[in-house]
């Protein structure tokens, strides 16, 4: 079985399980909305300076949401040791990781689809003219978040203080993604919108490097 086929089967299972309960999505969407709404009260939305903070707040909210959402992707597998069932299956170990990364990416993107219009209204920013480019930046940034977050969720799921460990591992590792995504988003939401090629290339390179690292070392993450 090909890697893509095995990963797609796992993604389909993850989506089915989540859309049955909406456990992760409900929590995450409510959380990011609360963060964005609360911060909107501290700034005057008509002030251009406040819009300068907007992209940073948006990505901070997504980062926190990611750390909430990513944690259960492996801890849920511990209930009946279903991770062992996945590892018993005749598939490449990276397929398990890739399936989880893609599922988490889908969940985070879905949260962003709900979040972006609210963000645009509250922070008085025009996202429609740059929607295509903004979506591209969001995709690259979120892929980085999902990749690193899923890998660290796999690592921390076997630790005793996993709830504390994941943010501790995740936040420093995601700093480059956060900076690049914020800068690229800020460029798009400025008065003269511009897509920064430098930050986009940086994000794409970051995603590629971490996906390759996950592919090379993924099988060791699941070893007992």
């Amino acid at each position, binding site marked *: 079985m090909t890697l893509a086929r*095995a990963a797609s089967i796992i993604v389909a299972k993850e989506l089915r399980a989540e859309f049955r309960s909406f456990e992760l999505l409900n929590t995450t969407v409510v959380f990011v909305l609360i963060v964005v709404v609360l911060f909107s009260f501290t700034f005057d939305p008509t002030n251009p300076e406040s819009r300068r903070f907007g992209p940073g707040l948006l990505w901070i909210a997504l980062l926190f949401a990611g750390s909430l959402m990513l944690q259960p992707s492996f801890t849920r597998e511990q209930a009946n040791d279903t991770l062992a069932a996945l590892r018993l299956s005749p598939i490449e170990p990276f397929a398990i990781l890739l399936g989880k990364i893609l599922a988490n990416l889908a969940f985070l993107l879905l949260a962003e689809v709900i979040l972006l219009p609210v963000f645009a209204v509250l922070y008085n920013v025009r996202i429609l003219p740059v929607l295509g480019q903004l979506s591209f930046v969001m995709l690259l940034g979120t892929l980085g978040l999902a990749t690193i977050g899923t890998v660290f969720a796999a690592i921390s799921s076997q630790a005793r203080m996993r709830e504390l460990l994941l943010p501790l591992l995740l936040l420093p590792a995601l700093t480059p993604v956060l900076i690049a995504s914020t800068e690229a988003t800020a460029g798009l939401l400025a008065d003269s919108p511009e897509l920064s090629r430098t930050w986009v290339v940086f994000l794409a390179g970051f995603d590629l490097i971490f996906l390759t690292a996950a592919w090379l070392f993924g099988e060791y993450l699941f070893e007992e």
Partner: protein
Amino acid sequence: MTATQNSAGLGIEFRDIEKRYGAMLALRRVSMNIAAGEFVALLGHNGSGKTTLLKIAALLGRPTAGEVSFFPDPAGDVIAIKRRIGMVAHNTLLYDELTAAENLRFFARLYGLDDIPSRITHALEAAGLVARRDSLVRTFSRGMRQRMAIGRALLAGPNLLLLDEPAAGLDRQGLDWLNETLSHLHREGCTILMSTHGRSETLALATRAVCLEAGSVVRDTGPAAHSNEILDLAAGFGSPPRFESQERAR
């Protein structure tokens, strides 16, 4: 009842296997050769290393030292070997948030099986769970979950079946089904390695018993052992475990 993929069982050889968890030595130089088609009962108290040995056989854990090999194993391809192994573990290895049919479909697709709908129906019929095919596994009783777990392990028609206390939670009807299923698989040539820490009816089907104590093999009846011999050995494990011997080993 699910047939094996082909008539040949998958043999397994453990050579000087050691497994260490931190300072604790779970397995100490375990060596044994299980021929294709054998039905081996792995006997021992709790903590004697049975589950660890089964996990190594299932390629879920690497030994700290020693080697495990499968035969016939022409290519040494791990994925090809995994396709021929079925396992019933302590946990059910099932997703509570999926239905019985969805669980089986998911694993059937991961194994790349053909004719999945009829395989699911056969597995559910064999486990006596057809009426509950669209029920979430979380609504099942312990016995139903165990039957589902066994059905999942047999779905791909394994040539090597690893069973960790498979009778746990089964009622009389479930035990009869388990015995009938294992007997059928054994006749078809499937290699079976089953752990238990006490006397059970299922043991009467075994043709060899290996006793583990504190991670070491302390007794091996060899192939073609009489069922009474195996049952007598198992009866010895009905008494409380001798933890002092394990402490010494550590």
